[in-house]
């Protein structure tokens, strides 16, 4: 089967997005109280996941999307 690959640039964007989430998760509890620390991390996870989906969009077959 001909396996499609995501472009390195797009993959890099996805990786950076997830590293950003991890960094935010580390700094948030110390800098923002309770819910206001949690909220940006939760939003960042969903955004990074959406970025990952965008990165992989062209590599997946119709049924996998």
């Amino acid at each position, binding site marked *: 089967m001909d396996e499609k690959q995501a472009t390195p640039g797009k993959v890099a964007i996805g990786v950076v997005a997830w590293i950003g989430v991890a960094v935010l*998760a580390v700094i948030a509890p110390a800098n923002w109280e309770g819910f206001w620390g949690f909220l940006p991390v939760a939003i960042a*996870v969903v955004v990074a996941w959406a970025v990952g989906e965008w990165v992989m969009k062209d590599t997946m077959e119709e049924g996998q999307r």
Partner: protein
Amino acid sequence: MTLRTLTRNVEFPDPPFIRTLFSSTLAAPLWLVIRFYVGWQWLTSGWGKVDGDGWLNQDGAALQGFWERIVQEPEVGRPPIAFGWYRDFIQFMLDNEWYTWFAWIIVWGEVLVGIALIVGALTGVAALFGAVMNFNFMLAGTASTNPVLFLFAVLLLLAWKVSGYIGIDRWLLPALGTPWSPGAVIRRRRGKDQEAEAVE
């Protein structure tokens, strides 16, 4: 006849509701919420210890104090630890001053489990380590939030295939695979090894 019954393989399929809950990506948003809650609890707890005294400094004095308190057996009433073997285990660690390095494991374990659950990286493994910590805290006589976190960790563990789907596991699990079904990275490596063997 009894032996035949015992050795016969009969598989009972799970009901659709259970399959949806633990094996379908439709349930991923539910697991995301639970992951966020449990992960945030671990992260803030670990971070509080990083900032606090007696964990990463003062030779783990906070953990030493905790261990010294829970190994006590009061003359009246019940001791904090219900099982004698667990009390002996804590006493052994106390006698050998393991709190000096064990405090580091607890603190960074809590932080790492928290981050892994929040970003959904190897969620099942992270939930397992979280459950082990909850289990030990409960054995040590600390109830607090541990029973609830333990329950959620077990559920995340049961749903390991999809609990990190809205997270890094979306790409990590297919790449790594499982012992019974190797992922893309393992298959590629095996293919290269086979090519090298064929050349030799």
